[in-house]
């Protein structure tokens, strides 16, 4: 199966719909008296990590949870706006576990693992039950029952939401469960603490090295199993919708210690973000995809009109109907403005590349609520999106009730992550990876409202059921921090800090972050080419060298030093960017968020002639590339080694993804 025969996805036997049930029926159990003997480390306190830590503690395990924020409640899951999918079919509109499964597989452009995705769809319904019981205040109808809305890539209303604050409400539910367990003594919480390295003893993950960000103290923690739930790597692009602190350090350290990194080139560029306005900009702000339920996306038909708008000579509302190109509705009539994210983003880029962009930088399209306000009234629109409209106005200074919003795609989510099997365990035994930090469920493109679903599925329902299968083979408490591997890892972590502090160069950390971020945005962003990727791979070592010679970190290491924190993260982003470009170069096809300009449909293709898909759409190459790329580290500057997990589709037929 894999090139070296070690990549076994451990998919259970049986028909797709029975796999998870069969698995649970046969999985090993640990008796309640023995559970408390096991120590579990959870890194990250977002939806995946927080729910896992709380649930494992409830089951009786001893948990230590770590987060870099000052409180677990601030993990970046909190910023998710739109909603969470679940196959409840409360709307009676034809939804089912199968449909959610199929939409997710198709949305991921047939590059995810069937069995994992089906399990995700199965447990989706339990998540909603769990969250409601915790007091998560989802939107309700006047009858008191739960409300739903639609999201991209689906033709049913299966998204549960809490205004534009769904992630916040789900995270608070999860955080409260975690705090309850902290109070009971089942979870030892370490806030303002960052993981610097993974400790591997006899080829199994047995602990971590961390830095207390307040005191600067570096210390080790041993456990019987390590769970990483540390989120995605979107900040490699410098500008993204991620929080400023989001980083790849924990996952990348694990990668350097032997864990394979899967599909790093699958990154999601979200179509509806507020456009960039200047080079001082520190982050980008997402406007929820839910806006596409009522907003219509367009650019002027002519470059000349667009130019007048860019110069401020003309306002969006001044453009008559016949001069507008509602390009998503035109190109994808059955999904229209709710086309999936990758397709919507690329269409926006195409429109702007044609010179029809409307923001002052040329990079922006309109998201227009005029028709929805005419149809439903301003009050209805305010009740649906009031907080989003307010946020837009605060940032842009424009009133979206009067003029169309200007939006542009921005990096938002990363589908790639550490490779895991069906148990959510890495090739490195004992290391388990949850949520955005793993790769398993979203393939090459994630559908809206599926990230929250996956994070909570992994933490509340999957890992509590799969972890005992590993723990049953472990002698609890056998490894302690006295093991020499801990001393070595701690010494290496300290040496790295000392090295960073001693460079004393001339350039602040952000200079390097911006440079590497812009490079990957240009060459490994919405459109990628062999030429561009090779150029990026050649350029990255120069940035790395410059960084390690010229970075300037003020202050001392033995206390709160945010520049030092950033430096450690950016050093890993530079190395990670290289890995991402290698993966994008290897994948000679277009799929989901990975668009290789060499591989697109042209007018000569049968699928275009028949009208099934359009000129310029992404072209997969299933014969050659229907596999997961799992990369083994050979150190920075050296090409990583590719291992493949062939994707076997037993229940769905691979087809050209058409949203026409």
């Amino acid at each position, binding site marked *: 199966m894999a090139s070296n025969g070690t990549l076994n996805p451990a998919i259970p036997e049986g028909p797709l719909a029975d796999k998870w049930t069969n698995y649970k029926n046969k999985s090993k159990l640990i008796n309640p008296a023995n559970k408390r003997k096991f120590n579990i480390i959870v890194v990250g306190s977002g939806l995946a990590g927080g729910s896992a830590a709380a649930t494992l503690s409830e089951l009786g395990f001893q948990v230590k949870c770590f987060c870099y*924020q000052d409180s677990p409640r601030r993990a*970046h899951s909190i910023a998710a706006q739109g909603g969470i999918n679940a196959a*409840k079919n409360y709307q009676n509109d034809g939804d089912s576990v199968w449909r959610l499964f199929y939409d997710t597989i198709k949305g991921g452009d047939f590059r995810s693992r069937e069995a994992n995705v089906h399990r995700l769809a199965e447990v989706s319904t*339990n998540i909603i039950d769990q969250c409601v*019981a915790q*007091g998560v205040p989802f939107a309700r109808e006047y009858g008191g029952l739960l409300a739903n809305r639609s999201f991209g890539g689906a033709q049913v209303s299966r998204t549960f939401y809490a205004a534009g604050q769904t992630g916040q409400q789900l995270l608070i539910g999860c955080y409260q469960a975690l705090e309850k367990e902290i109070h009971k003594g089942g979870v030892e919480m370490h806030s303002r603490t960052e993981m610097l390295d993974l400790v591997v003893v006899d080829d199994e993950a047995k602990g971590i090295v961390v830095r207390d960000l307040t005191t600067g103290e570096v210390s080790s923690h041993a456990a019987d199993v390590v769970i990483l739930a540390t989120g995605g790597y979107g900040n490699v692009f410098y500008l993204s919708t991620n929080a400023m602190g989001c980083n790849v350090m924990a996952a990348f350290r694990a990668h350097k210690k032997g864990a394979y990194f899967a599909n790093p080139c699958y990154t999601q560029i979200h179509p509806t973000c507020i456009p960039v306005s200047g080079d001082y900009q520190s982050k980008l702000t997402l406007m929820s995809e839910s806006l596409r339920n009522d907003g219509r996306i367009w650019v002027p038909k002519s470059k000349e009109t667009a130019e007048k708008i860019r110069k401020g000579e003309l306002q969006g509302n001044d453009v008559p109907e016949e001069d507008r190109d509602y390009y998503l509705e035109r190109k994808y009539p059955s999904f229209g403005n709710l086309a999936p994210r990758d397709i919507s983003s690329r269409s926006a880029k195409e429109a702007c590349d044609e010179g029809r962009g409307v923001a002052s930088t040329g990079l922006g399209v309109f998201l227009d609520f005029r028709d929805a306000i005419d149809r439903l009234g301003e009050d209805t629109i305010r009740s649906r999106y009031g907080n989003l409209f307010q946020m837009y106005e605060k940032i842009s200074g424009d009133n979206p009730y009067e003029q169309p919003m200007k939006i542009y795609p921005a990096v938002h989510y990363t589908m790639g992550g550490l490779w895991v099997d069906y148990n959510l365990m890495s090739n490195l035994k004992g290391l388990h990876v949850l949520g955005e930090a793993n790769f398993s469920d979203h393939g090459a493109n994630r559908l809206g409202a599926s990230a929250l679903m996956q994070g909570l599925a992994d933490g509340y329902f999957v890992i509590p059921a799969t972890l005992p299968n590993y723990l049953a083979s472990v002698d609890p408490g056998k490894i302690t921090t006295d093991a020499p591997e801990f001393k070595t890892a701690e010494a290496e972590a300290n040496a790295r800090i000392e090295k960073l502090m001693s460079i004393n160069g001339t350039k602040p950390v952000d200079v390097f972050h911006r440079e590497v971020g812009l490079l990957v945005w240009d060459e490994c962003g919405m459109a990628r080419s062999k030429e561009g990727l090779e150029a990026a791979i050649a350029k990255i070592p120069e940035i790395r060298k410059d960084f390690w010679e010229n970075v300037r970190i003020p202050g001392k290491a033995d206390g709160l030093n945010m520049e030092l924190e950033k430096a450690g993260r950016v050093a890993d982003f530079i190395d990670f960017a290289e890995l991402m470009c290698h993966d994008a170069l290897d994948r000679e096809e277009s799929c989901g968020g990975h668009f290789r300009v060499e591989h697109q449909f042209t007018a000569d293709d049968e699928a275009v002639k028949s009208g099934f898909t359009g000129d310029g759409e992404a072209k997969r190459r299933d014969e050659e590339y229907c596999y997961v790329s799992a990369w083994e580290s050979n150190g920075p500057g050296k090409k990583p080694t590719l291992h493949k997990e062939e994707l076997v589709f037993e229940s769905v037929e691979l087809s050209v993804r058409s949203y026409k």
Partner: protein
Amino acid sequence: MNLTLKVWRQEGPSESGHIKTHEAEGIPEEASFLEMLDIVNERIIIDGGEPILFDHDCREGICGSCSLTINGVPHSKDTGITTCQVHMRRYRDGDTIWIEPFRARAFPILKDLVVDRSAFDRIIASGGYISVRTGAAPDANATPVEFEDATDSFNSAACIGCGACVAACKNASAMLFVGAKANHLNLLPQGAPEKDQRTLAMVRTMDGEGFGNCTNQYECEAVCPKEISSDVIAKLNRDYAAASAREAVD
């Protein structure tokens, strides 16, 4: 635009702090307040100084990390926003801006503008939850919630735990924070069984952490970035009185 910043600088928790003047020159008016500080910090670093430390993360008003008192008002005088949502177009060339941390005895300063708000976590840990074991939940639609209650509960749940309410209060009271959590959970049928226990535990932990008493001036409501109504304080007082009475009878 060019600005003069008067910033609270403090080496560590046990050191004494002072106001230091920093010049912020050539700031674009499209920049956010924190981006303005980024620009200032980048120059400080290049000049060999130590940057101004402040907590921040999401920079879109939802994580609750940012915690600056700007010209004497937590999160600035603009209403309904956090510090990270303040934009420089609200200021004029030549302005002097005073920047201080969220001050309260229960929020000790760690360094510069960074404070320790873990007292809030301990309040939640003592009772700010509904005990439901994972997997034990009934079907989500089995318990309808009246629309008004659901809306009221949601409005309280919007709290981001930033601590501006405490920083704005002359007594450093945490009643708006605790009231919001109590109202979020106490209003829901799911939260009813633990209502008394939750209310008593959170209020007692709050007192133990060194937050002051509420004297009904509602500075908290005025600065709350999520515009949580001070009604939650009245409701908390009512729930606390009822729970205390029932506890005394038991």
